[in-house]
């Protein structure tokens, strides 16, 4: 490396990140408080509805994270935009995505047990989400294979795209296979009726916003970590080279 990068990010970025983290935390706490204590139980679902303030936001974050990872991978593969930070962004985003996919599956399962009478049903959305979970676990495993930076990055980017292209095919084939997931209830276009009212709608909206902030915060930290790791790798190599050279001169 001709230009040594700074090991510590500029102060401004650190401050922004800290403010972001604090805002995300406040948002999540407020969502929990509103969801558990302020909002009324639902007419049909009772207290179960409280799970719906966190489940859709988690699913949204998971899909957002995979979208960002795929876009970053595509940008890395495109020769004109081939920059190391797109690779790190893809990795960081996919990792957060996998965590939120796991949370989505768990919270959905907890909701499904009393609602559908089973922890798991073979419905298109659930099945697609579960396959996404293993698809991206595979992607993360591929990323973890050591190797030269650009080799690893290109391999991972192609892996990410192979996985991403699979998502619509999986979804449509599974949907065709069977369908019983509850239609999205917030805005149901067939009845033109909004099912979520007042404080419930605000809580859900707050859930979406604060979970998105959590995603950005986690991803930014993961990205920074990846950057520091790369820096450590390259500086470690340079230090070893310098040591070896010094030995050769001394010997």
């Amino acid at each position: 490396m001709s230009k040594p990068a700074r090991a510590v990010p500029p102060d401004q970025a650190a401050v922004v990140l800290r403010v972001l983290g604090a805002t995300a935390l406040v948002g999540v706490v407020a969502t929990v408080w509103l969801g558990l204590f302020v909002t009324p139980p639902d007419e049909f679902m009772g207290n179960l509805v409280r799970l719906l303030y966190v489940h859709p936001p988690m699913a949204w974050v998971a899909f957002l994270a995979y979208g960002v990872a795929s876009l970053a991978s595509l940008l890395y593969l495109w020769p004109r935009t081939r920059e190391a930070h797109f690779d790190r962004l893809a990795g960081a985003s996919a990792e957060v995505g996998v965590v939120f996919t796991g949370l989505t599956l768990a919270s959905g399962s907890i909701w499904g047990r009393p609602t559908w009478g089973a922890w798991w049903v073979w419905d298109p959305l659930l099945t697609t989400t579960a396959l996404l979970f293993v698809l991206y676990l595979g992607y993360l495993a591929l990323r973890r294979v050591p190797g030269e930076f650009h080799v690893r990055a290109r391999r991972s980017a192609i892996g990410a795209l192979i996985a991403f292209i699979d998502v619509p095919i999986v979804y449509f084939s599974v949907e065709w296979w069977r369908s019983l997931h509850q239609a999205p209830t917030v805005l149901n276009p067939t009845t033109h009726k909004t099912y979520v009212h007042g404080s419930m709608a605000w809580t859900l909206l707050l859930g979406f916003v604060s979970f998105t902030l959590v995603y950005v915060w986690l991803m930014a930290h993961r990205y920074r970590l990846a950057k520091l790791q790369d820096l450590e790798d390259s500086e470690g190599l340079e230090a070893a080279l310098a040591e070896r050279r010094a030995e050769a001169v001394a010997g």
Partner: protein
Amino acid sequence: MLRDAALVAGKDLRIEIRSRVGLNQIGPFAIAVLLLFGLALGPDRQVLAPASAGLFWVAVLLSTVLAVQRSYAIESTDGARDGLRLSGLDPAGIFLGKTGAVAAQLLVLEAALSLGVALLYGAHLSGALVLAGACVAGTLGLAAVGTLYGVAASGLRIRETLLPLLFLPVVAPVLLAATKAWDEALAGTPGRAGGWLDVLVVFAVLYVAIGIVAFGSLLEDG
């Protein structure tokens, strides 16, 4: 590109015919899987016959992992991979050749396995055209994804465990669509399999296209 593909496929198939690894290992493995399914589900033909399409395709999927690993194992010794890289052959041709060779071996295996499900599970093989169509399109998709991930994983020390993890979730739609197409054919309603065959064709075309574009850089990197 097609000439290069034929060369590579010819080379791989010649090696297979001479070494007989496919015949001596992958074939028996697939039969063992069929027998194990029988043991897992019990001897009741009322249970086995309706499940035979799915069991057939799971056996094919597992065998594909072995066939792909074998396809790259023959490139791993004596610097064969470097030879392939330096041969001046079109990378897209190499991809098509290796995919074609894997697909050809799998199709032979599928012919044997379909007799196996007829014999062991009492499946009634009807709608031959749909069965064969699903095999050709499905196998092409499986071989293309396998070859693509195979080259990404080959040369890595952890390839044996990495390849199945990468490969199996991606080919889930093939398992689903091919099983449904076979279900319809075996149930005597092959006319209703059309949509599932389309899924298989779309999958195969997409991944063959990605392979043609991406294989070169994966081969270079490894």
